[in-house]
């Protein structure tokens, strides 16, 4: 079947840079006549989009894909698009490692979600659980607002919010530094290397059924795009800035820290399962109650 | 033929009987004054006759075309000027000139001055409010008028003037009315017949026809009739005497 138009959806975060670049640079011409990129911001949008069939190919958290899959939604994870984009940022130059956090306060967004669960696992690994004060904020925005105003010192935030915070701080004559790379810490916990497969491209069942032949060109296009983005962040930023509605310096500077990849899902399965298992330990409902089986992976 | 027949009317508020077995006919061109002690059910009977309260029992038969009511309180729209309040009674489709002249005629009849017409009810004196309500009823040009103690807030001159209007209203033999009042002289002056309600609403106690046509009565005749009713007629004893009423 021919595909007149394909709309790729992604959140306003790292992996979407790849998508926006791929669309903007015309790397997906083989997939459909017209390819567009749109962002989604809330889980509600995603829920509505998947249900109504307007969303066919969506970048989403791996946990969300797992959840949808275990609920029997027929969604398949095609690839992993980032190997993690969580960082601890701080205004205190003394903070360089997890151990430095002992006895201090850190603010974590999205309670009970991936960032907090990962952070808890890392703390437990270091034997620091309960030895510091973890406070929560609704979204990274509030955490950064508090950080920049000097109310708090340290926060755990994802890219590109971390980069945005640092740029914002420098314009205000402050310094915020990237203190801890959570991907590395996570690698130490799992022993699988600094890989934290946070998000990937998920395909809706209708797409899998009707346009199976388009999957290969789509994935290879994204692979190519990933390589080009990493090689030339400035060019990528030019394509992605307007689509993501983020300033291009933020995008350019966040690319190196976004760990952008395009690993086929099946290939990343051990790392994905390590992540999902860690999450399932404390918050099983987040992935639908149990580990997803083969059906999740394309 | 009668303009209004009330047959065997009975009513109760929240289980308390207020009116019982009231039968009253008002002929065409007749003006009936209804008297009775305060709280005996006169207003309730008037509301029933005007179709504003459904009686618990009894039948009502109206053969006139339109009626208007002057209530015991003025019941003016607080958000409308006196002019608009009077205009309320006019039919919708009137030309504005026609409208204006009918309002003015009614207001003049009620002795309201032109610049009082632009006042809101809160700005009117008690008597002016009452006159506005009267003017509203007059403007409707209804052929049956219900009056519930309509002239209580008026000075003697205005009162006499308004009574004359009522007399003229019923004078041509076509239009009728029911007139509640506590002022015996007023009743004797304006009505063809006085009907006395029982002090507990327990039926009509009795009635008295007044001699002569209303326009033909003079002050002396009115005074003497009132004196006679009050002093000598047992029908009015409980209206006139509080002791009489208490012992009843």
């Amino acid at each position: 079947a021919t595909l007149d138009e394909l709309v790729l959806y992604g959140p306003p975060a790292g992996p979407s840079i790849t998508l926006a670049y791929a669309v903007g640079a015309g790397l997906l011409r083989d997939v459909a006549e017209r390819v567009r990129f749109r962002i989604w911001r809330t889980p509600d949008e995603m829920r509505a989009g998947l249900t109504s069939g307007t969303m066919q190919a969506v970048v989403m958290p791996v946990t969300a894909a797992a959840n949808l899959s275990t609920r029997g939604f027929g969604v398949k994870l095609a690839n992993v698009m980032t190997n993690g984009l969580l960082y601890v940022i701080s205004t205190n130059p003394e903070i360089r490692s997890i151990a430095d956090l002992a006895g201090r306060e850190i603010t974590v967004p999205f309670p009970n979600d991936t960032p907090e669960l990962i952070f808890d696992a890392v703390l437990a690994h270091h034997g620091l659980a309960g030895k510091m004060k973890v406070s929560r904020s609704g979204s990274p925005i509030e955490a950064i607002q508090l950080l920049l105003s000097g109310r708090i010192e340290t926060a755990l935030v994802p890219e590109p919010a971390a980069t945005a915070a640092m740029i914002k701080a420098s314009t205000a004559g402050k310094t915020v530094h990237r203190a801890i790379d959570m991907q590395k810490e996570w690698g130490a916990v799992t022993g699988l290397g600094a890989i934290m497969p946070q998000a990937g491209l998920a395909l809706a069942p209708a797409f899998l059924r009707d346009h199976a032949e388009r999957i290969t060109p789509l994935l290879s296009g994204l692979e190519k795009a990933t390589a080009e983005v990493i090689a030339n962040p400035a060019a990528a930023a030019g394509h992605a800035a307007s689509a993501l509605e983020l300033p291009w310096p933020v995008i350019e500077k966040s690319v190196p820290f976004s760990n952008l990849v395009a690993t086929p899902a099946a290939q990343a399965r051990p790392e994905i399962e390590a992540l999902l298992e860690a999450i399932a330990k404390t918050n099983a409902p987040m992935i639908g109650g149990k580990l997803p089986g083969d059906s999740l992976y394309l | 033929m009668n303009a209004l027949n009330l047959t065997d009317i009975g009513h109760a508020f929240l289980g308390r009987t207020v009116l019982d077995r009231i039968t009253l006919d008002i002929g065409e061109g007749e003006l009936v004054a209804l008297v009775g002690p305060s709280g005996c059910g006169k207003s309730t009977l008037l509301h029933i006759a005007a179709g504003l309260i459904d009686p618990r029992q009894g039948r009502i038969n109206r053969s006139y075309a339109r009626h208007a009511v002057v209530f015991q309180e003025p019941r003016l729209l607080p958000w409308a000027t006196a002019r608009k309040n009077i205009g309320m009674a006019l039919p919708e489709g009137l030309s504005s000139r026609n409208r204006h002249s009918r309002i003015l005629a009614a207001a003049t009849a009620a002795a309201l001055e032109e610049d009082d017409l632009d006042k809101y009810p809160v700005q009117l004196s008690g008597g002016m409010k009452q006159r506005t309500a009267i003017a509203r009823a007059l403007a409707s040009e209804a052929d049956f008028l219900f009056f519930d103690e309509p002239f209580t807030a008026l000075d003697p001159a205005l009162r006499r003037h308004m009574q004359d209007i009522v007399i003229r209203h019923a004078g041509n033999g076509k239009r009728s009315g029911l007139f509640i009042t506590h002022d015996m002289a007023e009743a004797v002056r304006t009505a063809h017949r006085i009907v006395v309600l029982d002090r507990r609403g327990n039926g009509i106690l009795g009635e008295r026809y007044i001699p002569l046509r209303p326009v033909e009565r003079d002050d002396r005749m009115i005074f003497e009739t009132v004196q006679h009713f009050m002093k000598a007629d047992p029908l009015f004893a409980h209206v006139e005497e509080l002791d009489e009423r208490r012992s009843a």
Partner: protein
Amino acid sequence: MTSLAERASRTGQFLWSGWSGLAGLSVFAAVWQVAHEAYGSFILPSPLETLTAAQTLLGDVSAWQLLLTTSSRALSGFALAGVIGTVAGCIAGFHPAILRLVQPQITLMLGVPPIAWIVLLMIWFGTGSATVTMTAAVACLPIVFLGAAEGIASRDRLLDDMALSLGMGQVRRFVRIIVPQMLNRLFPILVMALGTAFKAAVMAELLANAGGIGEALAVSRSNLDVANALAWILLSVSALLAVEYGLIQPTRSELEAWRHAARPWGVKR
């Protein structure tokens, strides 16, 4: 005696109103069921699923605690706004100049979404009960204020004069003459304010991650567990309905007994 009989009849009337309220709710549940059948559980779980989820939740003590937390936050916000709003509204009702001065600020409070200032609250009060309570209070305040101000401003001034002529002191005049008139206007508005308080409390918990039903809701949502999310909302609404029908409406019908007297049977509308 009569008063006892009257109260019994009023209680009866109140129960009857609760009963017809339930009837109304079942119509609503039917519509819900139809929507569920059209869109499936992922968008809108059926009423039964939601009820089951709610029941499961309630099997756990912690759910009761969350419910209590959120309700008490919403109620304290409501009470706070009720007190401040009524007092300020009364003052503004008496002095139109103050009302004119404050009116745009009331509009501001009404029209500015909480995300604009929730950070400030988080700074002042931390991410705890106080922030949520304050958000609920800020959401209710303009509503209560306008209701109270309107209640005072539209009072019957003739009664004021009457009370003055009896030599009643200012306080007594206020309590005996003006407050009953104000309450008459304020009560339907308190119903609005209460609903708003619950909604605002849940949203604030969601935005500020401050525990309570809002956070549970956020977790259910990010887990894509729609039945649970709806169950939480169902619980919060049940709490709201319990407060409304247990507190506001009875108080109101107590205060408005005289209105029923004005509408005996047999009187045409």
